[in-house]
Every structure is written in structure tokens, then in C-alpha cells.
């Protein structure tokens, strides 16, 4: 899966580099091909984390806990990519690295919430307690995520209006294909990284089990 994601990304980079310049924004518009998919991937990731957390609380099966932490950790990285690429774009287009409008602020809050999730996990040593409390926190944290999505519609904002679902934006047809492919590539990358992290969690549990078996804990 990782190979497929890498291949798609490499191919797409070639396509994106050769797209014509956008009228008003110059070269920097190409960053949208990474900025938006990273955000979408992180959003879907946090939804998966919520489902995994709820499923863990209901079934007490640790594979859901492993899924929750893997998805959240990778999501944190992708959200960071989102924030950084957004900052770079903002510096070029708006002249500032950061602006405290609702959309940006909510994305940052999201990032801090999920960092808090990981810090909470670190502070809890007993595996069952760690999984349970992390799941509870994840449910609380997830309620912030809709605010990120809807804030662009609820509050006055300087963030560009969504391009796909509104009448005022414009997105040339030839970009659509490159955008879609890049989106797929980034989602695949997300899935591949999550799988790697999941395997780490499983291995950790196996090691803990073996340790307990030989009373080496």
C-alpha cells in the first residue's frame, strides 16, 4: 500500500508541477493539492478514532484501542502538515504567517486536543485504564471537529470560501483530476502509516504478554 501511495504521489507531483499558473495566486496555488487532502484525511481519521473509541468502550476489545491511537497519531501528523502548508500559503498570499480567524484557530485547537490525547495516554500506565480513559477523552475531543468544519459557514472569516460546494468559488476542470488523484494518494498514505502504527501496537501488546508470562514485568 505504501508503494502505491508513493507512486501516486510521485506521479501527481509531476502533473502538478506542469499545471498552468493560476491567475491571481502565482506558483503557490499548487499547495492546495496537499493542504486540503491533508485536512480531509485528518478529519476522516478523527471520525475513525471516535468510532474506534466508542467500539472499545462497548466491546472492551483492545484492537479498537490500538486503532484509535494509531489513527489519532497519524492524524496529528497530517493536521500538522495542514497547519504548516496553510501558514506557508498565508505568508505568500496574505502576508502573514498566522491569522486568528475561526477556521485556522479551530484547526489549531483540534491539533492541541489530539496532542492532549497522546499526552494523556503517556500519563496512564495500566493498559485497561489507559485505553478506557483515552477513549472517553477522544469522545470529548471529537465534538470539536464539527466546529472546525462548520465554522467556515457560521462565522465571518477571511479563509477562502469552500470551492467545491459553493457558487462563488471556481476550480478549473483540468485541476479536478490532479486534485482527486492527490487526494487518493494522501488517503492511501494515511492508511499505510496507520497500518504501520497498528502493527507497532500489536507487537507491544505481544511483548507485554510475553513479559507477564515469564514474570519479567
Amino acid at each position, binding site marked *: 500500500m505504501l508503494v502505491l501511495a508513493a507512486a501516486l504521489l510521485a506521479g501527481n507531483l509531476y502533473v502538478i508541477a506542469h499545471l498552468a499558473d493560476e491567475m491571481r495566486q502565482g506558483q503557490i496555488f499548487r499547495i492546495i493539492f496537499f493542504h486540503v487532502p491533508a485536512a480531509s484525511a485528518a478529519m476522516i481519521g478523527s471520525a475513525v478514532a471516535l468510532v474506534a473509541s466508542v467500539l472499545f*468502550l462497548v466491546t472492551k476489545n483492545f484492537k479498537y484501542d490500538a486503532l484509535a491511537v494509531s489513527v489519532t497519531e497519524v492524524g496529528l501528523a497530517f493536521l500538522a502538515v495542514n497547519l504548516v502548508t496553510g501558514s506557508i500559503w498565508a505568508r505568500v498570499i496574505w502576508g502573514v504567517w498566522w491569522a486568528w480567524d475561526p477556521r485556522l484557530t479551530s484547526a489549531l*485547537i483540534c491539533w*492541541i*486536543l489530539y496532542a*492532549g490525547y497522546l*499526552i*494523556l495516554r503517556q*500519563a*496512564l500506565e495500566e493498559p*485497561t*485504564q489507559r485505553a*478506557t*480513559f483515552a*477513549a*472517553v*477523552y477522544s*469522545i*470529548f*475531543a471529537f*465534538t*470539536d471537529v464539527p*466546529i472546525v468544519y462548520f465554522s467556515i459557514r*457560521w462565522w465571518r472569516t477571511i479563509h477562502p470560501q469552500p470551492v467545491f460546494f459553493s457558487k462563488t468559488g471556481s476550480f478549473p476542470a483540468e485541476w479536478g483530476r490532479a486534485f482527486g488523484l492527490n487526494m487518493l494518494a494522501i488517503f492511501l498514505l494515511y492508511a499505510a502509516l496507520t497500518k504501520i502504527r497498528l502493527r507497532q501496537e500489536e507487537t507491544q501488546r505481544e511483548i507485554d504478554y510475553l513479559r507477564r508470562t515469564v514474570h519479567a514485568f
Partner: protein
Amino acid sequence: MRFLGQVMVITMKDLRAEMRTKEAINASFAFALVVLLLLSFAFEPTEDTMREISGGLLWIVFTFAGTLVLNRSFARELPNDCLDALIAAPIPGPALFLGKAMANFVLILAVELVALPVFGIFYNVRWTRQFWPLMLVVVLGTWGLTSIGTIFSALTVNIRLREVMLPLLVYPVLIPMLLGAMRLSALLVSGQAVTGDDTIWFKLLFGFDIIFTSLALVLMDTVLLG
């Protein structure tokens, strides 16, 4: 009705225990005063500055002081296995949550109602012009702080670095509430009425309180027994 009776038992127990020693509430008062003092060094309290920062300043003071009370809430139950006794008691988890939350609410509200006049005096702000709307904002915001703080207090009671973990976890989750409360407070403290677009903040506060209180009621048993 029985549920309410159980909630009241917990609330009165906590309030009685707090009133006898007054540890948390004194520390909270003192901390609020210190923060107000420190922040006065940060700004020149002119009319214009105050109009801009009053809302934010007030809610930072309230949140920091509130955290002291919230930390004590479940930490108080640790010695002598009181927490185990509470978990073993024949009251449902939600009743325990509501009881503790209401006790914390009363305590934090008391601290805030003392901090407000002090704020008015130190910063030369006439904050009573929109008194009842301001009180509504204070009550809604404090309930948001309390409900989230209480369940996270239960979550963090047994982990190391509890004093640090509680603020670290609570403040980000509180941000939507703080956003609404700060903007509304800034308007109301400077004497303006809340009109038009700004009423969305009231809806936000209501919605926030309802959503998170429900979530906390549902998850309290998991946190206590997990």
C-alpha cells in the same frame, strides 16, 4: 425524584466539607486576586483597552481560579478510600457527577461573583450596566467549565501529574465556550447590549452546555469504573 435526592446528598456533602475547611475556595479567591493584579501590570487600563480586553481577562481569571476548585473536587476523595466508598455507594454514576458538578458550580460561581467587583475596582470598569445578561453569560459559561472540569477531574484523579494534566486537558475542550463567553462578556461589560449576529454566542453557550453535560452524564460510569 429519588435521583434528585441523591444528587442533593452529594452536593450538600461536598459543600459542607468545603465550608468547614474552606481550603479550595480560599486558594481560589487568592489566586483570582493575584491573577487580576498581575494582569493589571500587563496593560494600561484605559477606557479603550478595557473595552477590548475585559471579556478575555475575566474569563482567564475565572478559568484559572476554577481549575483549583475542580482539582480539589475528586482529589479530596482520595485519602481514606473515600473514592472507593463513593463508587460502591448505591447511587448511579450520573447522580454522583451531577452532585459534584453542582457543588463545584456553586463554589466557582462564588469566587467569580467576588472577582467581578474586584475587577471593577482595580480596572475602573463599570460592569453593572448590563447586569442580568452578564449574569446569564457567567452562569452558562461557569456551568460549561464545571461540567467538563468535573468529569476530567474524575478522569485525572489517579494519574501522576494530576495538577498539570487537568488544565492541559480541560482548556482546549473549553475553548468554544470561552470564545462565546469572552466575546459576550466584552460586549456586556462595556455596557453594550447583545444584538443581531452576536446572539449566536448565546446559542453556542447553551448548546455547548447541553452537549457536554449529556456526554459527561453518559460517560461518568465508565470513568469511575474504568
